[in-house]
């Protein structure tokens, strides 16, 4: 067995330190249970090492976790600090609490995403045996994975350019195998649609923050009527109500973010990884076909035939190996995707119902009191 999780995390000024905790009965490890501290760059190093490893060309490489981004949240907290003088102590405390909760939510999310990456690797029958992975888990010193320097970044850039040009090429070739042909068409469209949905869900959830504004309106309103004896008890009750419903609304937005937005974001990355797999297979196919052509030419000229035969053999093996594992990977991807959507959509619906019912109850009881009062 191999169980990996992130047991702790620390947010420092501009980086996050994750405590990666492993429990394993595998003989390669010195102990059965151990922890190391890793930063985001080290996760990326691990991911990239998988991508660059030819042996893993036939697998969907679990997508790398996104970089922790607290900039927006930090900016808001800073602005709040600057505007402290212009609001009442109560307003300031409430806003500060909100922003701190937001910061915490982002923090939890980044931890979860890094953890999901590790769990996917640990669950994969082949990747879990990877040496780099074991080093990542066990080596308790800094892996010195310095961020890519300028030259390397440039090389990466060109690699990507070539890849996308190739991608167009490969995508144009119709596959003999029905399964792969279908998958290619499907994935291309699906990936684009998920991208669109992901962006739009983000925008929608951000708009949800309008409920936050209503709370301030209410505070302001209450101030006006607090001294008016005819009405202040009434307003106090309504204030209490809005205070409670605001908390519920905040939870709704957070849950939608988690169950819907994050789900879409994750499958955006996974579908890209699946596309990458198809691309690699496509490349291998092209290489194989080129090797065939070269072999025919060599036979015709009766020159370097043995060399051509060997090359052709290697290409054939590579292509068949990738195809075989790719098929299984893509089937697994589908199963995983359907299961994840099911889980999240069910949980989303259940949470929405829970919150709406909570709101309803608060409103009903408050209205009962208010109507009786008048």
């Amino acid at each position, binding site marked *: 067995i191999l169980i990996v999780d992130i047991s702790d995390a620390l947010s420092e000024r501009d980086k996050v330190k994750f405590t990666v905790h492993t429990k394993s009965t595998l003989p390669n490890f010195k102990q059965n249970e151990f922890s190391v501290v890793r930063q985001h760059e080290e996760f990326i190093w691990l991911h990239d090492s998988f991508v660059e490893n030819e042996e893993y060309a036939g697998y969907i490489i679990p997508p790398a976790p996104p970089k922790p981004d607290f900039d927006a949240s930090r900016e808001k907290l800073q602005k709040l600090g600057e505007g402290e003088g212009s609001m009442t102590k109560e307003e300031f405390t409430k806003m500060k609490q909100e922003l701190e909760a937001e910061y915490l939510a982002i923090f939890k999310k980044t931890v979860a995403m890094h953890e999901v990456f590790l769990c996917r690797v640990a669950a994969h029958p082949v990747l879990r045996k990877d040496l780099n992975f074991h080093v990542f888990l066990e080596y308790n010193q800094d892996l010195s994975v310095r961020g890519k320097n300028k030259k390397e970044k440039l090389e990466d850039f060109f690699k990507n350019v070539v890849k996308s040009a190739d991608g167009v090429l490969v995508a144009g070739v119709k596959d003999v195998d029905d399964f792969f042909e279908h998958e290619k068409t499907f994935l291309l469209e699906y990936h684009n649609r998920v991208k669109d949905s992901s962006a739009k869900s983000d925008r929608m959830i951000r*708009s949800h923050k309008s409920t936050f504004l209503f709370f301030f309106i209410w505070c*302001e309103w209450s101030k006006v009527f607090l001294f008016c004896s005819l009405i202040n008890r009434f307003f106090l009750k309504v204030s209490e109500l809005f205070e409670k419903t605001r908390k519920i609304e905040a939870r709704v937005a957070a849950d939608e973010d988690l169950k819907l937005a994050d789900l879409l974001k994750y499958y955006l990355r996974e579908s890209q990884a699946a596309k990458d797999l198809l691309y690699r297979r496509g490349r291998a196919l092209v290489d194989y076909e080129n090797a065939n052509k070269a072999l025919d030419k060599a036979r015709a000229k009766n020159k370097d035939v043995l060399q051509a035969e060997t090359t052709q053999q290697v290409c054939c093996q590579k292509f068949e190996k990738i195809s075989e594992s790719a098929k299984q990977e893509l089937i697994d991807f589908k199963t995983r995707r359907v299961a994840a959507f099911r889980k999240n959509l069910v949980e989303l619906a259940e949470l929405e119902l829970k919150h709406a019912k909570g709101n309803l109850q608060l409103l009903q009881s408050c209205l009962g009191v208010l109507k009786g009062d008048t």
Partner: protein
Amino acid sequence: ADSSFKTSEPDQSRRPGLHIQYVLYGMDFFGLFFCSCKAILSLLLTGDGMNAYMAYKVSTQTSLTMFRSKTFTVRRRFSDFLGLFEKLSEKHSQNGYIIPPPPEKSILGMTKVKVGKEDPSSAEFVERRRAALERYLQRVVCHPSLLQDPDVREFLEKEELPRAVSTQALSGAGFLKMLNKATDAVSKMTIKMNEQDVWFDEKIQDVENEEQHLRKLHVMVESLVNHRKELSGNTAVFAKSVAMLGSSEDNTALSRALSQLAEVEDRIEQLHQEQASNDFFTFSELLADYIRLLGAVRGCFDQRMKAWQRWQDAENMLQKKRETEAKLLWANKPDKLQQAKDEIAEWEAKVTQYERDFERISATVRKEVIRFDKEKARDFKRQIIKYLESVLHSQQQMIKYWEAFLPEAKAIA
């Protein structure tokens, strides 16, 4: 107690405007008697092109015997309402009554409607104006003294009213000037009043503070309305996107679930739209009304100050006349003496008159403000309850939608 407190929910077609009737029941006044007169406005667009104008059917229901029957209907134009306000101001503001102000004229808004633009913003404008006019009229009709005014009765009952020409060509700025003239914003002048009754000093301060707060709130509510409209837009866009995603999904059950999700989000978008409209009509307009009304309240305080000033001026004049008499006595000019004595008698009468006027207007203003406060408290409470009821309805709908969706999500395999 207010047993007559009901607002019947309008028949919500997608485009509010020509079908909606907001029914405001009479408000309790001093608990002594119900406002036994109820006015409802509905819309009637007449004429065509640039000559078209919006007429309103004013339907009155009353039990008061001074009217010709129990129910009757007349047609009125916007300028008629303005004309009514002008007449009432002229006659009654000097009594210290709070004259309810009508909604502003908006040339831009009306032009769009005339040109026949069928977009939601002009439908909104039309409904907004109708509702505002209805509230305005209802306030006039619920004022026990104003109701007695023959102009009000004529407005409600008379078949044809002469066109209120003076209000026709008023622009926004001109309208404001007219309002100011009518209420006479004397507050610009620094009348140092020797306030005997500290109640008035405190009250005017309260009114000014409250007006400030309400203006601030109004801006915030407008911002909230915009936010909700934005949320609604984003939800609609998201719903379409999810529908597309569902159609490209090759697992049948998941595909169906996603298109169901798209439908749920679409319905939720509609809820957000309704909520935005609710925020607007329930709150924003309420605040706008009271900002205008507080202006009218300040107006009647100003009238009281004017009355005081008139009295003081008369006292000063009397003093001068007495001095003149004394001078004449001393200078021994008997022929002018009689004139002086006459003038003194005249001014003594005026002083008495103006002092009595001042006491009367003070009492009226006090009574009016107390009535106004009660009405305001009631108005706000009622609107908030209405708002909460609509939020409650919204939540009930949400529950229905998600409950319908849950089995679809669970059916994914």
